[in-house]
């Protein structure tokens, strides 16, 4: 703020707008407001996940005589899933950056990579679920496995929704070009995709790394 409050004259017509612009730049741009709104959605999503994390933490010991985490989890498999998700997050960031700089081919390449890596993650996860169910360790086996399937499955459902959204975004960019509203939607998508990675970090640590010991 340029004028210090002590020297400013009292209540003019401008004092109202001056009191709103405490960050110094007037009203925030649309992009910042949209990002803020979507960030609040993401935080509420994270709060929903925290309830399932709490459920899992409470129930992780209740195996009902069935298999426990260290009998079931294969860390090599989980490591591959982690790398898929991490690199897809990276290529998503690079793709969004490429669109901002109007490098369309770089955008398409990076988003194709993001899709392939995300789909690979989903394939690995579904393979794991199928393997567990085939070994008689399905979600109905014990409270531990119910909590495991709902927590990991909800993350997987988010990844599935993210992949669908990614396809829509690529189609939108192809049809409408890098206009302002398309780029704002893409900003929301990349925030969503990065937030899924944050949830996966918590999942990897609590469920797999602590469970496999």
């Amino acid at each position, binding site marked *: 703020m340029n004028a210090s409050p002590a020297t400013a004259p009292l209540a003019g017509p401008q004092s109202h707008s001056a009191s709103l612009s405490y960050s110094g730049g007037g009203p925030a*741009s649309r992009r910042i407001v949209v990002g803020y709104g979507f960030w609040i959605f993401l935080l509420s999503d994270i709060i929903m996940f925290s309830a399932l994390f709490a459920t899992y933490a*409470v129930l992780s010991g209740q195996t009902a005589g069935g298999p426990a985490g260290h009998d079931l989890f294969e860390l090599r498999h989980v490591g591959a899933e982690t790398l898929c998700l991490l690199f897809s997050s*990276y290529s998503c960031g*690079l793709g969004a*950056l490429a669109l901002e700089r109007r490098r369309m081919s770089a955008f398409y390449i990076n988003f194709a990579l993001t899709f392939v890596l995300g789909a690979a993650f989903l394939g690995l996860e579904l393979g794991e679920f199928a393997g567990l169910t085939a070994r008689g360790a399905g979600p109905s086996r014990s409270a531990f496995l119910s909590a495991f399937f709902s927590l990991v499955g909800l993350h997987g459902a988010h990844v599935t929704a993210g992949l669908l959204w990614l396809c829509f975004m690529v189609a939108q960019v192809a049809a409408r070009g890098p206009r302002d509203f398309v780029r704002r939607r893409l900003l929301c998508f990349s925030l969503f995709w990065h937030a899924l990675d944050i949830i996966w970090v918590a999942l990897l640590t609590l469920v797999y*790394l602590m469970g496999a010991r």
Partner: protein
Amino acid sequence: MMQETAAAEPESTRSAQSADEGAPPGSIVTYTVGLVFALLLTGASFIVSQTDLLWAPGVPAGLAVLAIAQMGVHLVFFLHISTGADNTNNVVALAFGLLIVTLIVSGSLWIMAHLNTNMVPMSAILEMHR
């Protein structure tokens, strides 16, 4: 003086707006640094959990520290949460979200861990039904 700043404001607003509509936060360097940090922290988590590098009872605490550090890396390098002026609202929302998450997780664990002490023992229930 007030008039001066008021008159100067629309111009600075316009330039700030076009600057952030055109150039988003972050660059290829930011993302790459974030990726390297995330890979290092993930690798460290796997090593800590699979070897006896750390004193065994301290492993969960070590894993928790590594996970929180990696979430911080993701927030700063991928989601661009910063201490900048236009980011204050995001940081405040994040702090509130963290408060709720902490309450849900620690509250649930606290209550569930002490649930048995407040329950009627199973033998007494069987006695009552007899």
